[in-house]
């Protein structure tokens, strides 16, 4: 391998990125050293098994990835702003839409939601931690390593450029030479392990660790959606794992699963990808539905309308989500019967989804609605998501889809769904649980600016794209001509994208501003919450969550306690609490995974083998590790609780 295949040179944009990454890395090292924070970083965060801290780290990285994916989006929108632009060449544009799509879904949307789950779920069900705290830390590090590996591709070796769907044979060695596609395969593979483990972890946590008295049909809606999401993860991710492994074999070891030669079946990839890919859409949508349910009930001061129907409809959605994957390639010529079947199953998903929409509406009906920022996001979700939903039904009508497929109509549709549901929910949940995580609210006034500007920018950006699609503009093109007549709408769309960029800056400013000036939270119940996470103190509840786990006797248990005048923190006698110890093994294992992954990307097999040995060594070490945690003494609990009370 020559050096010129290793470091990317000759592109001013990439050079700029390389320099700014270098400067921020040096800056971070300097700050940590200067303020003597290395040990703090290691003890309190890197090796922590506390679900709340892991959740916060997930969210932090998700926001970073939102920034990266957002910069990608702005670059694409700049290139498309006018006909015949030469801001990005074809290769660069292709790499950017591929990394944008992959990062937004795998390294932004999922970790953001998983972060919120991590922070909230154990608190919401009255548990002290997740079922497998060690595994939780390991999941986090595999995610970080996969994310890191994927992200360095644009400065070392070149990014993948076959689209986030990586269709074969386009993604094969013959049509996509160089390490780019390998980054995709290994980055997703490594982070996928973490996601799968999180799925199992959450499932077991919810099944086995609920507070006494909390029956399944009393669980908060975010817990329900997390449970169902985890089941989808456990069923769908193995398909991705296998498919990625097969393509990796094709590229590195010359097998022919999906190749053009020796009887490979490119279409098999498309099928496997979407058998995972469509459920994936619901992996990022269902938790969003859960978050909105929590927020809408809190700010309508009313219990959820049609709780049972809500549960049944998420179950129905999750089952149907495995039966619709062919709608991503109606145009493959599978025949009229197949297309008709998948048209109907796809449209059928709109039925339970519609039920949910009306139940949310009726939850607000006869409530006392207050428009704090989390509620604003949840309310905005409904109309925007409905636009995404009805255009989804239009896409489901296969005969019409032959005209929408691969166009901006589709691009607009999935952004309306992914942004209005997932991203709005991430923002809403982030703001809603912010006081739980950090002990103070984000500033509401700045938050409203952020909200209005983002929602406006979002619609200005994506609404015109429906019409571009109907005017025949295909997705993934990097250039168009004057004669195509797509200039005006594209220009508007780009303006909208930059308005969203502006909104993001306001969010970041709000985080800074609130850190400096927000009044600190004293009660632990910042919004008048209904569920158990509000029953313990903030900022960031003590590592054991509850001094004594409350007993649940009703739906919306904390609301119920408040109604009955019970103070869950009035405890006569504390008992010692068993907690898991911190661990450095996952971090070390992650480093070996990085080594192995990086080696395989460049086909340096010796390096892959070294990494693999390291990984197995960590597993062996862990197997002989008999540390099974420690007890928090009664004195320490008393001390901690007293401090929390005194803050009042």
């Amino acid at each position, binding site marked *: 391998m020559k050096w010129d295949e290793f470091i990317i040179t000759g592109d001013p944009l990439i050079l700029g990125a390389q320099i700014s990454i270098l400067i921020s890395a040096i800056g971070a090292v300097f700050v940590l050293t200067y303020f003597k924070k290395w040990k703090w970083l290691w003890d309190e965060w890197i090796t922590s098994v506390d679900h709340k801290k892991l959740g916060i780290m997930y969210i932090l990285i998700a926001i970073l990835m939102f920034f990266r994916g957002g910069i990608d989006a702005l670059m694409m929108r700049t290139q498309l702003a006018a006909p015949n632009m030469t801001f990005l060449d074809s290769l660069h544009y292709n790499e950017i839409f591929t990394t944008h799509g992959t990062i937004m879904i795998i390294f932004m949307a999922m970790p953001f939601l998983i972060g919120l789950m991590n922070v909230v779920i154990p608190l919401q069900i009255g548990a002290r931690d997740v079922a497998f705290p060690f595994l939780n830390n390991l999941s986090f590090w595999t995610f970080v390593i996969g994310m890191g590996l994927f992200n360095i591709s644009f400065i070392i070796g070149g990014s993948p450029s076959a689209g986030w769907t990586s269709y074969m044979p386009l993604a094969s060695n013959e049509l996509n030479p160089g390490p780019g596609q390998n980054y995709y395969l290994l980055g997703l593979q490594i982070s996928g392990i973490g996601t799968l483990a999180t799925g199992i972890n959450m499932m077991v946590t919810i099944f086995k660790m609920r507070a006494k008295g909390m029956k399944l049909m009393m669980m908060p809606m975010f817990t329900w959606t997390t449970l169902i999401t985890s089941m989808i993860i456990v069923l769908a991710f193995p398909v991705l794992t296998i498919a990625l492994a097969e393509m990796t074999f094709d590229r590195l070891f010359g097998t022919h699963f999906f190749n053009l030669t020796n009887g490979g079946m490119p279409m098999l990839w498309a099928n496997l990808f979407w058998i995972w890919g469509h459920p994936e859409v619901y992996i990022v949508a269902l938790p969003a539905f859960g978050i909105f349910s929590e927020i809408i009930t809190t700010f309508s001061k009313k219990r959820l309308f049609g709780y049972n129907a809500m549960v049944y409809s998420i179950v129905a959605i999750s089952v149907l989500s495995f039966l619709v994957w062919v709608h991503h390639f109606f145009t493959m010529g599978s025949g009229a019967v197949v297309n008709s079947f998948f048209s109907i199953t796809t449209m059928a998903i709109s039925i339970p989804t519609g039920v949910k929409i009306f139940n949310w509406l009726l939850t607000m009906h*006869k409530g006392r609605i207050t428009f704090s920022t989390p509620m604003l996001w949840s309310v905005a979700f409904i*109309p925007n998501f409905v636009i995404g939903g009805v255009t989804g039904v239009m896409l489901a009508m296969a005969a019409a889809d032959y005209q929408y497929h691969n166009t901006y109509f589709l691009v607009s549709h999935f952004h309306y769904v992914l942004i209005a549901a997932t991203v709005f929910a991430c923002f809403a949940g982030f703001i809603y649980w912010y006081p739980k995580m950090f002990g103070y609210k984000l500033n509401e006034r700045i938050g409203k600016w952020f909200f209005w500007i983002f929602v406006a920018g979002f619609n200005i950006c994506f609404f015109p794209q429906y019409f571009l699609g109907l005017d025949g503009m295909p997705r993934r093109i990097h250039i168009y001509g004057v004669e195509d007549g797509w200039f005006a709408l594209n220009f508007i769309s780009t303006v909208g994208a930059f308005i969203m960029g502006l909104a993001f800056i306001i969010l970041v400013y709000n985080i800074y501003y609130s850190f400096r000036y927000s009044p600190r939270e004293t009660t632990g119940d910042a919004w008048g919450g209904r569920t158990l996470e509000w029953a313990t103190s903030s900022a960031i509840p003590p590592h054991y969550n509850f001094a004594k786990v409350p007993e649940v006797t009703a739906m919306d248990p904390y609301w119920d306690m408040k109604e009955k005048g019970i103070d869950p923190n009035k405890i006569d006698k504390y008992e010692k609490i068993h907690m898991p110890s911190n661990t450095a093994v996952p971090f070390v294992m992650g480093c070996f995974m990085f080594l192995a992954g990086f080696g395989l990307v460049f086909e340096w097999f010796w390096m892959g083998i070294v990494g693999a040995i390291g990984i197995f060594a960590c597993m062996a070490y862990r197997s002989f590790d008999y540390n099974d945690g420690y007890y928090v003494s009664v004195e320490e609990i008393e001390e901690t609780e007293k401090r929390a009370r005194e803050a009042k």
Partner: protein
Amino acid sequence: MLKNGKSLKWLAFLALSLFLSGCGNMTVLDPKGPVAESQAWLIWFSIGFMLLIVLVVFILLTVILVKYREREDHKGYQPEIEGSHKLEIIWTIIPVIIVIILSVPTIMTIFELEEAPAATAHKEPVVVHATSVNWKWIFSYPEVGIETVNYLNIPTDRPILFKLTSADSMAALWIPQLGGQKYNMAGMETQLYLQANEVGTYAGRNANYTGEGFSEQKFDVVALEQGDFDAWVEETQSDAPELTQEEYDKLMVPGSSSEMTFSSTHLDWVDHSTDAEYAINAWERMGYEPLNPHSRAGKAYEMPALTQSDSGEIEGFESQAANE
């Protein structure tokens, strides 16, 4: 407030209708043949329903938000409502009915599009093999033994039966004003019926991403009166050069191409729908090797832009070695 909200909504509705009336000019909703027409009809039909649904939800949402927002003289607060089976059944049934109403024409159209358009089904269709090669289109007319690159001539008022395949990446043949797209896949054949009812030139392209040259993989479709079409065929048969396999292999190397015309077809020696490896083997014959596009060697290699000389030779191809 309520009044304001209402007039605002009417304004939005008006703006939307204006916007939609502009849709008539949009390619997909400006069909020039029976296939695109039935799809455009289906699209309008669904847009109608969708607007209705959107309207209902938007109005409900606005009314609820206005009526039940927290305020001094709040009325009707009922925090303990659990749900209502009656309502829930209603809003399960209504979507079910809507889905059924949408399914019927959808499925009818799906089946209809598998066949030649009903009005012209009695006519013999023109068979065209459309082969995608990175990043060009090759159209073969086996019945008359001619082949074109990057343009397509068809007669009006007759069904065109496309037999789609690809030499390499998966592409999609799409002529929006004549009808929806279908994939071209190496080692497979898919069929697509399209038809033009009006004489004219329509934009056609590859709609499925295939890498670097994808944005420019376009072609013009020229729909001619049957007589003019026959004249063109005859002229091509007598005047255009023959295509040899050696020349054809130049087309297999990734790159772009101008329009070309030949008086024979490549189907004589390869059918890509049964031979997925042809292009990759041709690369070897032509001395082309795929390289990391970021490496020096990869950057130095310019993808060929091919043209057809008067004598019929394909020009513009240089083997990679010549570039280094």
